[in-house]
């Protein structure tokens, strides 16, 4: 029997009633696997991550994370559960008023009773794992974009979470930093046997490191499969996304009721 770390069933969510961001979404993420959720900007990927981490609650449907149905749990129970979840934010979201050391040590200091010397060792190990040993005393604004992303990675891994979530980990990185990040994510996942969810729209890097892919558009899941399946699919929307074509079922134009020609008075 295969175990699932995350089960999302028939979830509907919207900040206001008329405009649901997610429409009846279901997906399952097997334990120990790396799964990517892909799609264009604004299709509800980040919202899905927030649902899984319990920051928001769905209007309909259930979310089960690490065998606990978080849609039914109290805030306190969710806080307990979050200690087993790590999350890497889009731009790192390092605490700007703390040094690198304090950032990485943050969770350890808040949730454990480890001694200061023990914490120092763990922080050094975590920083070494992302290749940044020796940066402890730097402040976040002294780091480059790629480095702060890696510090954030070290911070989210501090408590060795069972489930890691990455929100657009590759956005705004140069090709080298991007490959370094992708390599690190893969390496760390394999080493710690974590379940990982990768929200991204960077196809190339993610196809290399993930086991399974979900495609989303307009708050719905439109396709799923292994990287091989996805590369050979004939789903027009997925093809457009992979090839980055301007013309296709996925329009770049804003959807509006106004007609351009009538608006200008041409007709």
């Amino acid at each position, binding site marked *: 029997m295969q175990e699932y770390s995350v089960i999302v069933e028939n979830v509907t969510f919207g900040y206001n009633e008329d405009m649901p961001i997610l429409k009846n979404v279901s997906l399952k993420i097997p334990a120990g696997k790396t799964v990517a959720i892909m799609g264009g900007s604004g299709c509800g990927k980040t919202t899905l991550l927030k649902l899984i981490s319990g*920051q928001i609650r769905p209007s309909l449907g259930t979310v089960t994370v690490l065998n606990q149905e978080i849609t039914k749990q109290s805030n306190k129970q969710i806080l307990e559960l979050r*200690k087993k*979840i790590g999350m890497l934010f889009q*731009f790192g*979201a*390092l*605490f700007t*008023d703390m040094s690198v050391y304090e950032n990485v040590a943050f969770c350890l200091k808040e*949730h454990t009773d480890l001694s200061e010397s023990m914490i120092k060792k763990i922080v050094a190990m975590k920083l070494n794992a992302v290749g940044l040993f020796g940066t402890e005393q730097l402040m976040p604004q002294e780091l480059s974009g790629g480095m702060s992303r890696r510090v954030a990675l070290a911070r989210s891994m501090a408590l060795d979470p069972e489930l890691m979530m990455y929100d657009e980990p590759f956005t705004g990185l140069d090709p080298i930093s991007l490959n370094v990040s992708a390599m690190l994510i893969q390496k760390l996942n394999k080493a710690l046997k974590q379940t990982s969810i990768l929200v991204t729209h960077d196809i190339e890097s993610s196809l290399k490191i993930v086991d399974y892919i979900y495609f989303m558009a307009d708050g719905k899941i439109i396709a799923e499969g292994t990287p091989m399946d996805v590369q050979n699919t004939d789903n027009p929307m997925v093809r457009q996304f992979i090839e980055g074509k301007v013309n296709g079922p996925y329009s770049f134009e804003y959807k509006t009721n106004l007609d351009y020609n009538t608006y200008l008075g041409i007709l």
Partner: protein
Amino acid sequence: MQKLINFLAALGNPFVGFILHLGGIFNLFLEIMLSLAYPFKKPTLIIKEIYFSGVRSLVIIAISGWFVGMVLGLQGYNTLQRFGSVSMIGSLVALSLLRELGPVLTAILFASRAGSGITAEIGLMKATEQLDAMSVMAVSPIKRIVVPKFIGGIISVPILACLFNTAGIFGGYFVSVVLLKLDNGTFWSQMSDSVSLHEDVINGIIKSFIFGIAVTLIAVYQGFIAKPTADGVSSATTRTVVGSALVVLALDFILTALMF
């Protein structure tokens, strides 16, 4: 008919907004009260906040107090001279500072110096997802960020108000005794004759304590509801300063009516 409806809506809209804000602030206050004990386990957090909001406001408060005291001395001298009661100047300076000007001006200066900073900091932390990151790490931002700022603020404001009063009294002393050659002994004895410890000094400190709660609460709340954009954060800081000034003046009226 439509105009009437529009008019009533225009009247009702800000009112509903006001009630919503009031509810939000009350909610935040309750949450803060519930986790008030947390930062006492980590006193460095509170010390850091006192440093940022209190110590950094020290100079501006002392200088403002000094000038306000000098103005009081000068104006008091000019007015009292006509009634031949210049000797009352000491008690005039001390009473107006201790009862009203000290607590009120300190709170307003604190709002613009430290309160706006608190709002901007929380607003920016929200904009850069730091608050989200913290709550995903199972640490409540209210406990870790807001409560230390709150405690730091309500410790700092009364201390700053005492400093303001002291600087102001010396400012008044400087004008009336050093510049206008009033008798040194008369200045102090008139003052201590009319100032009572309980009625004036203690009540003034109670006032500034309450103002401290109000100002830090508004600053923190505005930071939390700020839109996560540059524009949103800047208008939130403005709202902190303006809102604090209004609330402090209104509270001052109520407290004065209750106390004196």
